[in-house]
């Protein structure tokens, strides 16, 4: 177990810069998720930590030691790949014991480690099988077992659940969280799925185009996203964004008039907001509730019924629209005019450049 820290990390492919000056401190035993849209560089960062990708600038430290010029072999890390990458010609037992055997670990010790990993992951029955005789979930478990037996300084996961079907993904997510509780090891986990990130992580690093946008706990990311990108990326369905202008700002309350009608109040601290300033209003779909006198007016465009919940897509003016998350028993017909109110605590204000200027805290 060890802390992992990235300082001024850069990666260039030829003239293209894919990782731009990333600083990240991952504490010993922390479960950190790197998340972002595809192509944001999160996997590249993981591969640089693993030593599979050369570092163009900055440094990677594992347990305080700079590992930039170390081969993967010397870094004592374990990595679980999206595609499992099991050795197809070896049984489950051989797959898990391969690195121990090559490292000339005493046979009894290796057997004990394999047994422990197999017990943790429920693989006891499958030890003599070949990977082709396993289901996707079992294969992914073997890949994790292969990581566990090595007692690595850190576990790296590269979208390990992306190849599994939805039900299995949820189950494996729970198992992964339990695994972390049980082992208490440093884990760095890459995914593009914000639900996975929110449920698994102690801290989440959100990346966009090779830049670290924000590194915070899931609750902080949800409640105080630093900018519009993070605000939209975290939370499902996405945060609604409406254009508006500051009408008045006084005593920690800001009144914003929306471009397509209606007025919204935001609670905030003292802020340098001047009347007339253009702002972008972020409202989470779950912060809206139907109200007869509601300030947000629109007509129903689409209703998605999910059982316990109903998502209502509302056209707001000619160009804008927003989504409202409502209880499953909410009924509305297409084209109906509906009115909503936003809880002042659930509204965020961003300036024209997308930076957070006021977060509605709960």
């Amino acid at each position, binding site marked *: 177990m060890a802390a992992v820290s990235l300082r001024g990390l850069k990666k260039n492919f030829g003239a293209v810069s894919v990782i731009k000056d990333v600083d990240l401190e991952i504490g010993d035993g922390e479960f950190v998720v790197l998340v972002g849209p595809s192509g944001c560089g999160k996997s590249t960062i993981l591969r640089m930590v*693993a*030593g*599979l990708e050369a570092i163009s600038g900055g440094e990677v430290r594992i347990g305080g030691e700079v590992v930039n010029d170390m*081969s*993967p*072999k010397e870094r*004592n*890390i*374990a*990595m679980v*790949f*999206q*595609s*499992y*990458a*099991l*050795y*197809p*010609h070896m049984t489950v037992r051989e797959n898990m014991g*391969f*690195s121990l055997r*090559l*490292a000339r670990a005493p046979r009894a010790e290796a057997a004990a480690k394999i047994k422990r990993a197999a017990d943790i992951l429920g693989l006891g029955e499958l030890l003599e099988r*070949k*990977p*082709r*005789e*396993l289901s*996707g979930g079992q*294969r992914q478990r073997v890949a994790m077992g*292969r990581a566990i037996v*090595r007692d690595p300084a850190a576990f*790296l996961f590269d979208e390990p659940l992306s*190849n599994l079907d939805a039900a299995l993904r949820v189950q494996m997510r729970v198992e992964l969280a339990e695994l972390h509780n049980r082992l208490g090891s440093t884990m760095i986990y890459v995914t593009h799925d914000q639900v996975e990130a929110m449920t698994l992580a102690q801290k989440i690093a959100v990346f966009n185009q090779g830049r670290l946008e924000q590194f915070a706990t899931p609750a902080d990311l949800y409640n105080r996203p630093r900018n519009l990108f993070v605000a939209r990326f975290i939370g499902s369905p996405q945060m609604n964004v409406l254009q508006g202008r500051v009408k008045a700002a006084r005593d920690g309350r800001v009144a914003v008039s929306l471009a397509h009608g209606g007025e919204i109040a935001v609670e905030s601290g003292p802020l340098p907001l001047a009347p007339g300033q253009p702002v972008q209003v972020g409202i989470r779909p779950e912060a809206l509730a139907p109200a007869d006198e509601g300030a947000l007016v629109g007509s129903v465009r689409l209703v998605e019924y999910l059982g316990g919940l109903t998502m209502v897509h509302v056209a707001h003016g000619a160009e804008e629209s927003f989504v409202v998350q409502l209880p499953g028993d909410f009924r509305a017909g297409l084209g109906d005019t509906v009115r909503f109110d936003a809880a002042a605590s659930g509204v965020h204000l961003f300036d024209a450049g997308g930076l957070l200027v006021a977060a509605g805290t709960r």
Partner: protein
Amino acid sequence: MFPRPIAKARPAVRVAYKASLPVALLVWLLPLVAVALTSIRGAGDLARGNYWGWPGEFDLVQNYRAVFVTSPIGLFILNSFRITVPVVAASVALACMAGYALAVYRFRANSWLFFLFVGGNFVPFQILMVPVRDLTLRLGLYDTTLGLILFHSAFQTGFCTLFMRNFISSLPHELIEAARVEGVGEWSIFLRVVMPLMRPAIAALSVLIFTFVWNDYFWALVLIQGNHAMPVTAGLNALNGEWVSAWNLVSAGAIVAAMPPVAMFFLMQKHFIAGLTLGATKG
């Protein structure tokens, strides 16, 4: 789907297909049938010009015994093995390593090196005849099996490397990365992770190279003079008498000489397995 299954074609096409298939098969096999038939004819048939008709006498045993008695064919076959087996081993082993390097490592001259291997295959070997003969003479390897082994190994390795490089490229790269992260050294990755998955490629290539080299006539003629190093293909000539062409004996010798590559194919057949990497990745 292309090609379209013949069962779905028009009836006329189907009939034409079914009729022409046996004809094509016969034309294809005719030379082999002729050689097999000639190998059991007596000398009288050939003197009478009965090349294609029913044999006048069946000299199966006499002919095949004569092959072994009147010519040192045993020595020739042994020479063929002494040449072919080392060539197969050397070129396949070199190709595995070179192919691995070309497929797995990214280095500056990688693609140029690869083109060199590919390009070497386009050199017509006839133009190498004089330089190679001179080279072996100067190295003192003329008229030795070693000379032939070295030349064949060098010449076949190019094609083998092309074949192996493409095969290794098609293996999931994550397997190699997973092993690296696990702390497995490069040699161990090559020997214990990649090599076991290359079994079908090694088997196919071995059969191919074995057949190429075993059937070589040209280089045996160019580089070998004495019986001591003569492989069986070139040695068959010895069965023709000084004044008489004993085609029945040459045919019998040819059949004997053709057996080892056939045996090689059946020996290796069980290694031609598809889907060896099944289960390695999601697939």
